[in-house]
């Protein structure tokens, strides 16, 4: 019975993800697409919370919903006149997109079916914050300080590049 509840919640979230993902790529208006993407990211965060992984859920909300989507919306507001609609796709492009989507789906399904997953629910409820923090900032095996620093350098380069491109001459 308890499993039934979890299943019901999961299927609701999954349905939101599927429906909104399809709407994101089929809608003609760009801001609607961004909003649908926002719902996809919300539902993904919901799945993380359902798995008791609240840290990842909160990160998903801040980075994607609170950061990236706002950047998208901002750039749409600054660049697109309202009432602007996407042009109809050419058939060749539609076909290429479909093939790419099907190939991606095939790879995902293949991996999901062949990979053996660890138990999806953590045994002791939420993961303690200290464990996450130590894994992120440690230098030992299965710890992520080096990738973390590499990504910060990469992001810094991106920021500097963005400023160089955007500054007035």
């Amino acid at each position, binding site marked *: 019975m308890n499993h039934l*509840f979890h299943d019901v919640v999961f299927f609701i979230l999954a349905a939101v993800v599927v429906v909104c993902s399809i709407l994101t790529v089929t809608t003609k208006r760009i*801001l*609607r697409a961004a909003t649908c993407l926002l719902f996809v990211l919300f539902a993904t965060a919901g799945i993380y919370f359902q798995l008791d992984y609240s*840290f990842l859920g909160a990160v998903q*909300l801040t980075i994607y919903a609170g950061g990236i*989507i706002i950047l998208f*919306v901002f750039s749409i507001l600054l660049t697109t006149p309202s*009432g602007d609609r996407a042009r109809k796709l050419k058939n060749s492009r539609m076909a290429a997109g479909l093939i790419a989507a099907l190939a991606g789906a095939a790879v995902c399904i293949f991996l999901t079916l062949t990979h053996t997953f660890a138990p999806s629910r953590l045994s002791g409820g939420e993961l303690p914050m200290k464990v996450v923090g130590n894994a992120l900032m440690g230098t030992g095996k299965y710890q992520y300080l080096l990738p973390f620093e590499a990504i910060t350098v990469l992001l810094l380069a991106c920021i500097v590049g963005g400023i160089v491109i955007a500054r007035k001459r």
Partner: protein
Amino acid sequence: MFDFSVVTQWVDQFLRSFMPAEMAVLAELILIGLCLLSGYALIALALIYAERKICAFFQCRIGPDRVGPFGLLQSFADMIKMLIKELIDINHVDRFLFNLAPFVVIIASVLAFGCIPFAKGLQVLDFNVGIFFLIAVSSIGIVGILLAGWASNNKYSLIGAMRSGAQMISYELSIGLSILTMVVFAGTMQLSAIVESQAGGWFIFRGHLPAVIAFVIYLVAGTAETNRGPFDLPEADSELTAGYHTEYSGMHFGFFYLAEYLNMFIVASVATTLFLGGWMPLHMPGWEGFNRVMDHIPSIVWFFGKTAVVIFIIMWFKWTFPRLRIDQLLRLEWRYLLPLNLVNLLLMVVVVVFKLHF
């Protein structure tokens, strides 16, 4: 001190006595939702009344005094008026986004409202990343404001929304960093644990200099985050009519209005929880009798009392300072508050590492 988990456990056992465990959980979820929403609405009404009265006293007026004793029922009457007003359909707008925007704003604010520890044992969401979750969900509200401005198809709304977005994104940095300073001091992000660890003294006293700096920065940034004066450029009435909610009518406008006041409450209660001890009574080390007297005041009174003080300070800002220009606003954040905040974070780390706190 009275522990509210007695009440919640009694409700839990009462429900479980006549229905299966899963149905009881479902019923509790619905009950909690109803309690949260009605608390949300009641607090917003109380705040609107308080704002009108305080504003009136600052301007040497009396304020609402006709409906009920001291005008106490004025905001209830306004609520009923708002509920039965017509929702006007506007031509040439993206209707889906236009109608969605107020709900995004209000959902973000209700989610953040659910995290707050109101009293001993009276808290709905208590993740071990509690304060981080609270920042995360409250940042969603910006999306709603941007959508509202864009979907209204109106230049004033769009300018208001852009200003609001720029302002909230900038000041979110300050809020996040000042909260991070206190998380460094507390050593945990769980809101209940943060409150528990202030039993020996509130953080603003124990953390002395860095905590006081973080408190001041948090208050300034929190006022800006809620789009209130002197940072109320997004809805500067003299230039933009009403900013991003110009085109909204009836209860859709009501949602923006409610969320604005509730966000002020959330900012104040987070300040209370992080700096002023949440629902913890004032304890002086060594004063046994004094501590025992303080323990007799219920925890919920402590929480709402401290929150009311912070809210009064925020309202005091609004009715005292003139409005900033947008360049002054952004300069204040990026040139002054952010560097100060980073230095303060470093100072707090030094204080914690060398155990210089009380």
